């Protein structure tokens, strides 16, 4: 087990910066996700950590050891690839044994280690099956067993769930998380799926265009996104233009319309400047969720039913935004064209200059 430190990592392909002075510290035993849209440099970063790409600048440390120019086979990391990358001409057991053989583990110790690794991923007894005979989920678990059997210092996962169907994805996700907790292995997880990153990570970094925009716990990053892009990437968000009305200490009052104003945390803001306010659909309180009488009103433009939730497209003056509420039986029916009161609780909205 080891911590991982990336210091000012740079990587460019021709003119394009894939990774732009990226610095990240991952603590020992931490589950750390790299999240970002495709092309943001997250896979390149992972490949640099694995040793497949040499950074053009910067340093990598595993614990105290500088590994920047180590070859992949010298780093003692385990890796699970998006397309599993199992060796198709070998059985499950041979696939798992491969890393042990390359590391010259005693022959007598191998069967125990192999069956132990397969047990971890609930595939005990599958040693002699050809890998092509397994389902996608099973193949991915073999890949996980192969990565873990070598007892790596660091586990790297490159979008390991993206080839699985929705139900299997959630199951495997939980399995990966609980395995990681049990083994306490430092884990780097690359994904473009915000739900995966939020649900599994101890901490996560959001990468956009090769730059690390924000690092923090899932709750921090979701609740207090550093930029508008981060907020938009991490789930649904509304962004409305507003006018700054007054500012005091760390709080700023902004106005959307005559009837709707809001206090957000933001300091050093110029009065009467324009601003963009971001908020999540599920934070909007509507109808009978409101105790307050002094609420602005909006007209329902559309109701989108998605099962557990329904989304309401609301129009307030020139502002159009989406609200979300659970479809519990107590909540009455809302129809297109209804006018309803709404509000945003304090602390729900983010101010972007």
């Amino acid at each position: 087990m080891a911590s991982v430190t990336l210091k000012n990592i740079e990587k460019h392909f021709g003119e394009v910066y894939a990774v732009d002075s990226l610095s990240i510290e991952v603590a020992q035993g931490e589950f750390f996700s790299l999240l970002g849209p495709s092309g943001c440099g997250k896979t390149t970063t992972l490949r640099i950590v694995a040793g497949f790409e040499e950074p053009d600048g910067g340093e990598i440390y595993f614990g105290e050891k500088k590994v920047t120019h180590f070859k992949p086979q010298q780093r003692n990391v385990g890796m699970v690839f998006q397309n599993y990358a199992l060796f198709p001409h070998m059985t499950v057991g041979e696939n798992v044994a491969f890393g042990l053989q390359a590391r010259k583990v005693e022959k007598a110790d191998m069967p125990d280690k192999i069956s132990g690794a397969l047990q971890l991923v609930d595939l005990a007894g599958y040693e002699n099956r050809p890998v092509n005979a397994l389902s996608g989920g099973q193949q991915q678990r073999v890949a996980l067993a192969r990565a873990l059997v070598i007892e790596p210092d660091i586990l790297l996962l490159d979008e390991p769930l993206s080839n699985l169907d929705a139900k299997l994805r959630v199951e495997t996700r939980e399995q990966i998380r609980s395995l990681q907790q049990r083994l306490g292995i430092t884990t780097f997880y690359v994904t473009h799926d915000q739900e995966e990153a939020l649900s599994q990570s101890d901490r996560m970094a959001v990468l956009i265009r090769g730059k690390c925009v924000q690092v923090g716990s899932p709750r921090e990053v979701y609740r207090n996104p550093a930029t508008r892009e981060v907020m938009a990437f991490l789930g649904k968000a509304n962004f409305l233009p507003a006018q700054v009305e007054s500012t005091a200490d760390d709080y700023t009052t902004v106005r959307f319309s005559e009837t709707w104003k809001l206090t957000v945390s933001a300091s050093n803001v110029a009065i009467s400047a324009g601003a963009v306010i971001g908020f999540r659909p599920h934070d909007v309180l509507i109808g009978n969720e409101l105790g307050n009488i002094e609420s602005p009103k909006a007209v329902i433009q559309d109701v989108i039913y998605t099962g557990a939730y329904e989304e309401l497209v609301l129009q307030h003056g020139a502002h159009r935004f989406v609200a979300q509420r659970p479809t519990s039986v107590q909540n009455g029916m809302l129809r297109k064209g209804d006018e309803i009161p709404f509000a945003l609780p304090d602390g729900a909205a983010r101010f972007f200059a």
Partner: protein
Amino acid sequence: MKRANYLQIFRWCGLVIFLLMIAAPIYWLFITAFKPEIDIFANPPQYLPGNITFEHFIDVWFGTSFPVFFRNSLLVAGTAGSITTIAATLAGYALAKFQFRLKSTILFLLIATQMFPILLLVVPLFTQLAAWKLVNSLTGLILVYAAFNIPFCVLLMRGFFADLPKELDESAQIDGCGQFGAFWRIMLPLSLPGLAATLIFAFISAWNELLFAVMLINSDSKKPLTIGLASFIEKYNISWGLMCAGAVIALIPIFVLFAYILRYLTAGLVAGAVKG
């Protein structure tokens, strides 16, 4: 009848004509090899096998230098085929998996070599080999065949390696293999179909080659099969029986090679399922 049926009949007729064009000479070769001398020249020709004899086979094997030719060809084609396959595999892997300077230039040159008419190269090649004292030697012939086949085979193998996902290579390295270990233990076994195809191609083209053999070899003890068979055509006499019997024997190694390698070729077709 419907239009589609006519089309079907037309298609079948085309296929039958095509098949006859290919199969008829081979059929004729086989029945001539087994006909007594007198029947070979029968008029009208005997289209169906009548009396069967092995006299030509016995004559060609025990009464001529054919076994020497056969051995020479086996040696030349086997060595040239092996050299070609090994070189093409290593070069193909490098060109498929690594980034290095002049890579695209090398690829271009490999393709460019395929554009020269071979006749253009005969004289310079002869002079060069003469300078190295490799004229009239099997070593010279092996080098020439390997040199002519390697460029195409490199491109062939490069295609096979390029189709293998790079993650396989990488996961072998992550697991602790060096670059060569990953090649030897993972990439090579997975490219066996390509290897088999390359070996067959290189072997057959050396086995069948006549032009360079005629140019470079002049002593009887060094002649490969192709010249040997041609030598049955004399000024006033063509020994059809001997020639056909020799040709039938010459087909045997090819059949054996195919029979042996076929399983690797087909194994490749099912092993393609890398991703679930």
